[in-house]
């Protein structure tokens, strides 16, 4: 490996920490804790400089949005504003214990309440919980709300419908909430097939989980018919908010007759993805579902904000405390900064950037769905595959040109899928460079396919053996 493990910097007796001298009497641990005392703890013995150099070296082996384009479809890798980082670290906002009295945290609760109001306005939902800590967590919260709703009505519905283009978290969530998953195929235009949906719904249907625009970036033009079909059998319609960056200011899930939804603050509202997390996945619901939201629910009283724990119909809790507060602060700062018209401009430019890329790439790469798309689009590497070079190779070759790869092999409805979401924060020069690189790779495939198949060549490590990793798991030192 390029940089050795932190433990390999160890030298017995070396330390990196500093603590004040113990200022109370030392007790006899052996006699008091006896059988509870551990004998050995094999953690690194390194200096502070070792730690700093090591993790700096590791950071240099990484690539983030600040390094360049990060066109992961469905992930909305937009720029993460630095002022939000500064704001979230203000001690008066961050050095707070979750069990402090409400009186001591009114400033923070006001911010959270303000965030709730803005999310409700953006989505046309009536009530919001901020508790879920990720998108999938928001999905789970939502489906538990669906469950609770039917329980309260003494109905025992067993099925949740999920289109085949859905993100993997959707079916996984339905299962975790105790439902059978009914998958329905998309039609030839990449949208929900109304006939298939009608066929699938019945009095056993609890909900439809839908992303709109869907994972192909295509807006479901029959959306009102879809929600109507589901509502007709008494089922609920859930909106996966991963793609809010495509519609903010142009349309609202509530107006499309969705009953509940989740937001991804780490996508739409610019909070950093942190190498995989943390995120935040607030859930919005229409009034009739509000009683089931997790507790505590943030409320505004006559003269103060408070956490309402008296919620007998609540699904109870999905998180130990109130969710990822630090992420909420950043999302709030983002909304305050760009404002209502900024959000709309954001949407416009996200869609403009995506359509520009699509226009420039659709000749060279197969575009399996010709429908108009919004903030992302999906190409297929099938033409290149005919030359023996797969989408995976194309992705790896992009890394050689110091650009991150799009999402690949998702959605599952597209063979050799290349799912591209540039986001609004990229400028035309960056987009052009990305296009030219992809076109160049396509040329390379024709002229020297082995070059692409053996990519990456310039990264700190080359193609890693995933099969070996799974077959002989080496998961720790």
């Amino acid at each position, binding site marked *: 490996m390029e940089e050795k493990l932190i433990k390999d910097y160890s030298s017995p007796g070396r330390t990196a920490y500093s603590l004040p001298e113990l200022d109370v009497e030392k007790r006899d641990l052996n006699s008091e804790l006896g059988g509870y005392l551990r004998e050995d703890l094999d953690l690194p013995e390194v200096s502070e400089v070792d730690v700093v150099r090591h993790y700096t070296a590791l950071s240099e082996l990484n690539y983030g949005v*600040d390094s360049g384009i990060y066109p992961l479809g469905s992930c909305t890798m937009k720029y993460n504003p630095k002022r939000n980082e500064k704001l979230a670290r203000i001690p008066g906002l961050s050095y707070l214990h979750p069990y402090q009295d409400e009186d001591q*945290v009114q400033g923070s609760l006001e911010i959270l309440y303000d965030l709730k109001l803005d999310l409700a306005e953006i989505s046309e939902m009536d009530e919001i919980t901020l508790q879920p800590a990720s998108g999938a967590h928001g*999905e789970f919260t939502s489906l538990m709300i669906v469950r609770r709703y039917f329980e309260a009505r003494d109905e025992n519905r067993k099925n949740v419908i999920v289109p085949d283009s859905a993100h993997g978290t959707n079916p*996984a969530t339905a299962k975790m909430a105790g439902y059978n998953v009914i998958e329905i195929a998309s039609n030839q235009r990449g949208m929900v097939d109304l006939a298939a949906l009608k066929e699938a719904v019945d009095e056993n249907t609890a909900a439809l989980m839908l992303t709109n625009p869907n994972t192909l970036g295509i807006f479901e*033009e029959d959306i009102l018919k879809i929600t109507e079909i589901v509502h007709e059998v008494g089922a609920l319609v859930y909106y996966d908010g991963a793609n809010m960056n495509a519609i903010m200011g142009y349309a609202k899930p509530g107006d499309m007759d969705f009953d509940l939804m989740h937001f991804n603050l780490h996508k739409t509202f610019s909070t950093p993805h942190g190498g995989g997390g943390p995120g935040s996945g607030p859930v919005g619901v229409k009034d009739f579902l509000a009683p089931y939201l997790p507790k505590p629910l943030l409320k505004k009283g006559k003269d103060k904000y408070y956490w309402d724990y008296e919620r007998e119909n609540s699904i109870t809790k999905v998180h130990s405390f109130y969710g990822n507060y630090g992420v909420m602060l950043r999302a709030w700062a983002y909304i305050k900064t760009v404002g209502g018209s900024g959000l709309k401009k954001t949407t416009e430019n996200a869609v403009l950037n995506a359509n520009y890329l699509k226009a420039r790439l659709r000749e060279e790469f197969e575009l399996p769905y010709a429908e108009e798309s919004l903030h992302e689009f999906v190409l297929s590497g099938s033409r290149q595959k005919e030359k023996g070079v797969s989408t995976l190779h194309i992705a*790896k070759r992009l890394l050689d040109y110091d650009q991150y790869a799009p999402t690949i092999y998702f959605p599952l409805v597209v063979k050799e899928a290349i799912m591209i979401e540039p986001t609004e924060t990229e400028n035309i020069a960056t987009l052009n460079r990305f296009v030219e690189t992809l076109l160049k790779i396509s040329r390379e495939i024709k002229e020297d396919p082995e070059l692409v198949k053996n990519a990456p060549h310039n990264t700190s*490590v080359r193609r890693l053996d995933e099969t070996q990793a799974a077959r002989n798991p080496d998961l*720790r030192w």
Partner: protein
Amino acid sequence: MDYISNTAAEQDEMLKEIGVKAVEELFAMIPEEISLDCELDVEAGISEMELMDLAKEAAAKNKSLEEMTSFLGAGAYDHYVPSIIDHLISRSEFYTAYTPYQAELSQGTLEAMYEYQSMIAELTGMGIANASMLDGGSAAAEAVTMASRISRKKKVILTETIHPAYKEVIKCYGKGHQLEFLELKSNSEIMDPAVIKENIDQETGVLVVQYPNFFGSLEKMEEIAKIKKEHKKLIFVVIANPVLLGLLKAPAEFGADIVVGEGQGLGNGLNYGGPYLGFMACKDERIMLRQLPGRIVGKTTDVDGKEGFVLTMQTREQHIRREKATSNICTNEALNALMATIYLATMGKKGLAEVAEQSYHKAHYLAEKIDQLADFEVSNKENFFHEFLVKSSKDIKEIKAKLLEEDIIAGYDLDKAGKKGLLVCVTEKISKADMDNFVEKLEVL
């Protein structure tokens, strides 16, 4: 202020390339009935200076722990956080990246996660650990559902001494899996192992114990370990405090099959409850590994034989297995796990033990002092670690309110958890002077 860098001219150029005249045309497919015909009712954007003023105004309405001495714990702990952590995680190659799907350009995140898994495994004594869960409560819940899948039994025994919020999260997740919960009562701050023993039957698949428990007490782990030994098929889940594992015996030594908990104390600030990280470790057995939720990083080699790291064992995960996945978790708490990693590296072998030790000595110093006061009694003085339960003939709410006037948060009022008393926590950050002052104020109440 927005974050868009294309000029109007550039936008026009792009529109031309696309073949439309105005950007609104790109939204033409949105049916008219649902197309917004007015602006969002969200306030107009503001500059950085105005934003910071707003934030400071809000901060001024708060009272942070900077201005007080806090004896609050109950699942979120105010341990010392070395300065280098924030500096290192602020390297934007770390925090502006996402899940390392392209391993070759994400070796920094991957290697750090491998180190995290290694150190969590070491702390808990378990064979393997995953790359983080959403928080302590949800990690506990997913451990329980995982355990029930492994044991193939639906009955789960919870102990009353587990954090009440965790119990709620566990039961919420349990609903989806049709789990059946038996919550064992306790008449002290620890569970009577005999009660555990007599309640385990053929149907019991999972036993959950917290170590130290919600009241700061150490359960009779050796006796529980014996019970576990007698029930080979029972999956034993331990919710542990990872900081205290610097000094305490690893749960593995008491027969734990899965160890989970809140990792916040490992170098993560309080942040009013999140973002924190859940950690999860289990025995290194195929059946366990196959059922483990979450991301896992593994070491492998590249085409040139050079060592490197990848996400592995992905056939458990939602993006591959969809409804057959072991969990729906996708985004996790990677940056918080990185903080925990840097913390563990910095504190190291000696430092972590010293944090736990200092917390222990100080907490016992304070408990003895409080116990000597006329109207107060420490009810778990026999078996607590760094958090203890104070009972008083006086009204707890009043005590808390009076002390707040002195800028002291006396602890967690157990009333919220349906019990009587005050849960007092001491970490290495509390000085003797802080404690003497606290006792003095209690005395003159």
